């Protein structure tokens, strides 16, 4: 398979700031360059596109090249040689520019896969005009390494498959190709809905894991102990998640903290300790009771901006009802795009 990786990975961040070798093990180069090495070692024809030679030490570049990876500073050259173009670049404007460049050069039925914490659906929305007008054959997927490549924790990939909505951004064949690439490197591969991948892969999984355990705790207490109707419990969960999400969107974490008032939240949450064993709540209370001065400064700095506590699915249904499915889909897509612009 022909694979191109974009972005070698910031070794200064990995080695000097995050101290990965001491804390997690593995050896540099980490990140995109390590992914390129692993693909080449699995027998693939690999390009690594990195315009900034300073990202890696000379000895690390030698490891990359000795593995059989072709290094280039030319994004177009790498795209021309890619069945799968893997973006190991920070999510943002620069990545979108590279992705747009790739769409001009990647061979027919090529795949552009992102690796970072934002959904491949968002990448699709950003590239939508190019993809729908000029390159309907290109598939958008994700190959989340779900840990820093090069560390022993990187034992699996999270691949964005068909989305939970009707929008398919890659064919089954293209999704399977990503799976084959991951497995050829000896990694486990998990296919999840494309729009869910960012929540269960990489840094998003931190928020998801803590939130999910809280949701399960409340669901158990609500349905099994209080014996409230399931629908009511689910609505309360939904209301809480929406409140947090909407406040973070409008006011940032600081504003959300100010609105939530951790001191008050601790008192209220303690009254929900209805069982002997509620480990998730114990852990959460323990954390919240020990918030340091830094967090208190965040609260002080916070401003609560005007916020619509929107039930997203209900709003989407209302839009569909008012303006029809296609116009509503367009509106939803533009909102998604705006969130990341």
């Amino acid at each position: 398979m022909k694979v191109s990786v974009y972005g070698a990975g910031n070794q200064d961040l990995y080695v000097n700031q995050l101290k990965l070798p001491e804390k997690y093990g593995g050896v540099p180069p980490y990140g995109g360059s390590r992914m390129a090495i692993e693909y080449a070692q699995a027998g693939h024809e690999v390009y690594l596109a990195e315009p900034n030679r300073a990202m890696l030490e000379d000895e690390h570049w030698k490891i990359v090249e000795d593995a059989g990876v072709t290094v280039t500073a030319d994004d177009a050259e790498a795209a021309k040689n890619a069945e799968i173009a893997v973006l190991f670049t920070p999510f943002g404007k620069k990545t979108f520019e590279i992705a747009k460049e790739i769409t001009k050069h990647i061979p027919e039925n090529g795949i552009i896969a992102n690796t970072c914490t934002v959904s491949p659906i968002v990448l699709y929305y950003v590239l939508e005009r190019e993809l729908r007008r000029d390159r309907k054959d290109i598939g958008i997927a994700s190959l989340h390494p779900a840990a820093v490549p090069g560390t022993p924790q990187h034992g699996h990939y999270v691949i964005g498959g068909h989305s939970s909505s009707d929008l398919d951004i890659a064919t089954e064949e293209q999704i399977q190709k990503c799976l084959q690439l991951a497995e050829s490197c000896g990694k486990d591969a998990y296919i999840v809905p494309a729009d869910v991948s960012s929540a269960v892969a990489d840094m998003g999984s931190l928020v998801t894991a803590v939130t999910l355990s809280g949701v399960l705790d409340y669901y158990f207490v609500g349905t099994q102990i209080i014996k409230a109707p399931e629908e009511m419990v689910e609505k309360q969960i939904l209301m809480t998640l929406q409140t947090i999400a909407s406040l973070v969107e409008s006011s940032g974490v600081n504003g959300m903290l100010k609105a939530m008032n951790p001191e008050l939240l601790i008192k209220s949450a303690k009254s929900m300790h209805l069982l002997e064993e509620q480990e998730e709540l114990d852990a959460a209370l323990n954390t919240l009771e020990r918030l340091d001065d830094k967090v208190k400064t965040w609260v002080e700095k916070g401003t609560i901006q005007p916020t619509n506590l929107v039930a997203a699915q209900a709003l989407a249904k209302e839009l569909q009802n008012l303006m029809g499915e296609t116009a509503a889909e367009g509106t939803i897509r533009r909102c998604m795009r705006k969130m990341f612009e």
Partner: protein
Amino acid sequence: MIARILKDLGRINGVNGSLVVGKDGLIIETEVPSDIDSELVAAMSSAVFGTAERSAEEMKHEPLEQVMIEGNRGKTLMIDAQEGILVLITDVDINLGLIRIEMRRSAERLRDLLT
């Protein structure tokens, strides 16, 4: 080809700009003055046309053919082109009959090009 259709429409007296947008608001082709945000107009056209389509359905007037927004300083006309919407931005004083005939003709051609 679509650009040609818009250029031809632009030659009609009183027409100041035109766009072809997908029903979802994505710009397919645009010929609008630089002081108009074509992305925004495309999104608004999709929302207006979609809402008008739904209204026509509810009032049992479907299928919707045209929408006109009439302002003191100009008009915006929209016509169904199956996969897309043809949008025309005009002066106030225009030969509405002539423009409607030309828009229908252009929409026919667009239907073939967009499918």
